[in-house]
């Protein structure tokens, strides 16, 4: 078996080590799977051995994706997390924990790449309190012994996964933008001004992934089996959920929108954001804001784009009346096309903008709305 192991695992790595670093796309993952069998073919191993190799290979990694949802629908960030999990190789199990959330489990089971769905449904899990979800994750980990535990780097994922990591005595890896191999991840530091590649030496990798850097897995086409998970003892005395005050909007959700229009201090008031809403509706865009606009009370906090707000990477980002501080750029500089409308020709935003218009936004924005 030792010889067999060496030929199947060590030899391919020795010959083509570069094939074992995943570069961030599903295609390259499949490339690895198919090409790494190459030495086995050369050695004339039978198809049977071949299958065995693949099965052993699959057992090497098994990932738990913690599903984010509102008890009714899946948050699309989970589909990005499933893609990230698929890049690691091996089984992908999804955990749906919540109250009356069976519909979400059914939705996840259809996603391509999911091998199994675990459902933890209890009224005590209302509000997704990390104190209560953590024991559920630990219970599923105890049962299935995952190598990776993954979630989207959203407010919920960021609040939950470090707590899980501490319980497992491992260091979490936050807000990953690329997966190089099952233990090596790329993340940004210093507000996106440096890319850090880190190797985790921990037995279990607890990872949150930046949704905008991983394509969403296909929502239809899979057929994973669902297993109900027994709810462990929950520390209910620690905390309770009271209420949510969510901003209501008909516009697309900021993190997943194809186009985003953001306003900054230059808008001068909350009422003037109406100009952006009108343009956004013409373009089917979401509306974001800089920290200055949020701090000045023009718009609610959950619209903030930046290092400490939301990270977006739409096809089109239009920054209106935003100077372009480091902290704001951290949240939008991966957008495909950036447009800046600002009356200050020296504003730093023009250094990252593909198309810059030096103009008074109070004239340019209505004109643009009218002409579209």
């Amino acid at each position, binding site marked *: 078996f030792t010889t067999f192991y060496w030929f199947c695992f060590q030899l391919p790595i020795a010959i083509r080590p570069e094939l074992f670093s995943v570069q961030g796309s599903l295609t390259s993952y499949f490339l690895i799977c198919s090409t790494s069998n190459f030495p086995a073919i050369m050695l004339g191993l039978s198809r049977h051995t071949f299958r065995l190799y693949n099965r052993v290979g699959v057992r090497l990694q098994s990932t738990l994706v913690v599903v984010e949802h509102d008890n009714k629908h899946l948050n699309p960030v989970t589909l990005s997390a499933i893609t990230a999990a698929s890049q690691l190789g091996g089984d992908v199990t999804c955990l749906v924990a919540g109250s009356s959330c069976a519909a979400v489990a059914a939705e996840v089971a259809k996603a391509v790449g999911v091998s199994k769905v675990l459902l933890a449904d209890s009224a005590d899990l209302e*509000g997704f*309190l990390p104190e209560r979800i*953590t024991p559920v994750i630990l219970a599923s980990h105890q049962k299935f012994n995952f190598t990776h535990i993954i979630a989207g780097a*959203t*407010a*919920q994922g*960021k*609040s*939950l996964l*470090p*707590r*899980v*990591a*501490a319980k497992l005595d*491992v*260091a*979490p890896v*936050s*807000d990953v933008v690329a997966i190089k191999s099952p233990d*090596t991840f790329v*993340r940004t*530091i210093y*507000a996106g*001004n*440096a*890319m*850090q*590649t*880190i*190797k985790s*030496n*921990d037995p279990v990798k607890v990872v949150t992934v930046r949704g905008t850097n991983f394509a969403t897995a296909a929502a239809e086409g899979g057929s994973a089996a669902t297993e109900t998970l027994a709810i462990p003892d929950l*520390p209910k*005395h*620690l*905390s*309770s959920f*009271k209420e*949510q005050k969510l901003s209501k909007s008909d516009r697309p959700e900021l993190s997943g929108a194809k*186009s985003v229009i953001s306003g900054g201090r230059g808008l001068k008031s909350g009422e003037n954001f109406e100009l952006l809403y009108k343009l956004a509706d013409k373009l089917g865009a979401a509306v974001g804001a800089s920290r200055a606009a949020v*701090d000045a009370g023009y718009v609610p*906090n*959950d619209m903030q784009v930046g290092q*400490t707000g939301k990270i977006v990477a739409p*096809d*089109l980002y239009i920054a209106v009346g935003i100077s372009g501080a*480091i*902290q704001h750029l951290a949240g939008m*500089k991966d957008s495909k096309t*950036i447009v800046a409308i600002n009356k200050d020709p020296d504003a730093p935003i023009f*250094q*990252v*903008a*593909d*198309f*810059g*218009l030096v*103009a008074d936004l109070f004239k340019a924005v209505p004109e*643009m709305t009218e*002409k579209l």
Partner: protein
Amino acid sequence: MSLKVLVGCKRVIDYAVKIRVRPDKLGVVTEGVKHSMNPFDEIAVEEAIRLREAKKAKEVVVVSCGIAQAKETLRTALAMGADRAILVELSPKEYEIMTPAHVSKILAAVAKMEGSDLIILGKQAIDDDCNATAQMTAAHLDWPQATSASKVEVTDAGLTVTREVDGGLEVITTQLPAVVSADLRLNEPRYATLPNIMKAKKKKMTTLSLSDVGVELKEHQTVVSVEEPPVRSAGIKVKDVDSLIAALKQAGRI
């Protein structure tokens, strides 16, 4: 109610500094670069001081884990109004491998030693951008956590905390002791006045070692490389709205 509050402070490169990657590509240049207290930690310190001013807290202890220069950061917190400070001192070499996994264990140990009822931390450090220490500290202590807090009220039963979440706000209650992490909107930190800076020099600062707090520095993660992010190619300035629309149409964006 008079709580003993513990506040974590991290010394980081100032938020306005444009960082540079080190030639060895294993970190960023820190020598000769302006450092200051992590902005989120200033908010945490301010909140703790406000709790003491509102007679909800009796003592505010600030703690930092880092190299000797972190004492300056702690002095700043003392000048803002904290009562005393603790530095868990690491060598520069040890500091390189320090992650939230270690800091959370250190903070949990200090909280136990101090008999703290409430730990307030910033939601993330603006250098490593991890957003993990508060959650991990709460886990080590088996305390409840209230992360990204924009409002904290101390009640007879514990805490009522408004949190900033993706779609808006959410309100939770926790028992005490608890760990809270501060979001930007929690408060507006005060400036230390000169008389307070002078007074802060007389306040007590204790230095502890890793063995004093019983934490071992296991290397959970190895930095493989630190690199500059890809640079965006220079864009163009358009002369009016019409040319902007034309350019966007040509690029297939509208």
